[in-house]
């Protein structure tokens, strides 16, 4: 068993945005009893002792936590590399200055499209202008900036303009991540899944931009796994390199794993080190012993680890199956059918996106609206 390198600290699932591609859990009420500041401090200490070096502060919108600056400062004191993953709503200049002083290392800001009206429509709230302003503040205060865009059928044709925008705001890295179909995104899958022509056109643009901006901007492109021959090496292997702590203190190998029928493990009841080493949610799919064929006898089992357990469960109802994305999977037809539908002309009219009813409660102290 390895030590984890990274902690994904899901500070809250509250969020001012209502993106149709949201992959967070649907059962928001289960996460409303959020860890207190001291509990997060303890999580950070235990994570650091376990070998964690990077702390991704995410959600939901982490800026909705009033104690974010304290949490960052504590992580920084422990020597962790801190990365804020934010929609930028609530990233005011004074707050940014406090985070800078607390030692925050890196900021990642999402944007939904390059054009204000389109971005606001996908986010479900007027937010484009504030995001651009926040990107300016990030650069002005001397942080490295990553711009993140979740790609899907409704914005993937804009990749060239999205990259131009990232260049214009001075991003050091841009992540173009095709939608992963978990949580709310699963409900919108058929409306979000791009067609093959869209993907091919986007990839041409990405390759050319990468070449042109090699020394100035990293362009990370996450392919849509529905279109690949082999599954993604999900999380670098189950409970191998990363761990997630959810807003209520549940510990998971990845945020989507809350959907699996595995017993809960919580930092409120057990030490993190014991959970990492022994709890069923961590050991269920660690290594390769759990694998059925075709994975068990496959040369790639140490390369892709059988793909994503959550996707296997979502599509087949059995988390031990080979990820159906793999062309060798006996269930591959489930993916092939969705891809075929996305490529039939009769569907080109495009289904509507169902926005996530996901507003931060009005009582939230840091409500940014």
């Amino acid at each position, binding site marked *: 068993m390895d030590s984890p390198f990274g902690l994904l600290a899901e500070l809250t699932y509250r969020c001012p945005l209502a993106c149709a591609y949201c992959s967070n859990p649907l059962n928001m009420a289960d996460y409303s009893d959020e860890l207190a500041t001291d509990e997060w401090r303890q999580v950070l200490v235990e994570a650091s002792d376990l070998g964690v*070096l990077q702390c991704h502060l995410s959600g939901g919108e982490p800026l909705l936590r009033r104690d974010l600056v304290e949490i960052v400062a504590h992580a920084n004191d422990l020597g962790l590399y801190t990365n804020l993953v934010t929609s930028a709503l609530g990233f005011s200049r004074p707050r940014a200055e406090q985070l800078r002083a607390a030692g925050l*290392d890196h900021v990642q800001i999402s944007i939904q499209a390059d054009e204000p009206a389109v971005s606001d429509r996908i986010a479900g709230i007027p937010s484009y202008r504030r995001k651009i302003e926040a990107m300016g503040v990030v650069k002005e205060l001397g942080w490295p900036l990553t711009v993140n865009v979740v790609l899907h059928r409704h914005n993937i044709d804009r990749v060239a303009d999205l990259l131009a925008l990232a260049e214009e705001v001075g991003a050091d890295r841009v992540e173009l991540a095709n939608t992963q179909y978990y949580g709310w995104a699963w409900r919108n899958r058929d409306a979000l899944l791009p067609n093959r022509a869209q993907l091919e056109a986007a990839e041409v643009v990405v390759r050319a931009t990468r070449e042109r901006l090699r020394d100035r901007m990293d362009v990370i492109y996450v392919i849509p796994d529905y279109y690949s021959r082999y599954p993604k090496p999900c999380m670098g292997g189950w409970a191998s390199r990363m761990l997630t702590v959810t807003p209520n203190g549940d510990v998971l190998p990845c945020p989507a794993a809350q959907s699996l029928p595995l017993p809960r493990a919580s930092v409120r009841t057990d030490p993190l080190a014991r959970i990492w080493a022994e709890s069923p949610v961590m050991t269920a799919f660690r290594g390769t012993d759990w694998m059925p064929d075709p994975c068990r006898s496959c040369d790639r089992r140490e390369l892709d680890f059988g793909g994503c357990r959550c996707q296997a469960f979502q599509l087949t109802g059995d988390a031990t199956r080979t990820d159906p994305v793999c062309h060798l999977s006996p269930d591959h037809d489930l993916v092939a059918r969705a891809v075929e539908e996305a490529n039939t002309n009769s569907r080109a009219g495009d289904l509507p996106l169902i926005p996530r009813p996901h507003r931060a409660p009005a009582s939230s102290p840091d409500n940014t609206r």
Partner: protein
Amino acid sequence: MDPTTTRPRVSTSDRPRLARHVRLTFSRTRQQHILLHPETVVVLNASGADILELCDGRHTVTEIVAELGARYQTVPDDEVRRFLTRLVTRRCVELADG
């Protein structure tokens, strides 16, 4: 840099420094030096860590090689440059001209 060059070349007069979004740290758990990047980690061996500790934007590559020569028996200049070139390609190290 000329966009037509295939990869950045590190010369002996360059003064390398860590990019501002990376951090060099020591992992107590692993007893190893690690280079931290927003999304990735690079586990370093002892000489790699020694090289990067000297990447402060003041030492030239020649000076780094000389410094390491005092600690290790042999430090081939081209090996240090290859190591740094790989990290420049991954945008972990930046070069200031000599």
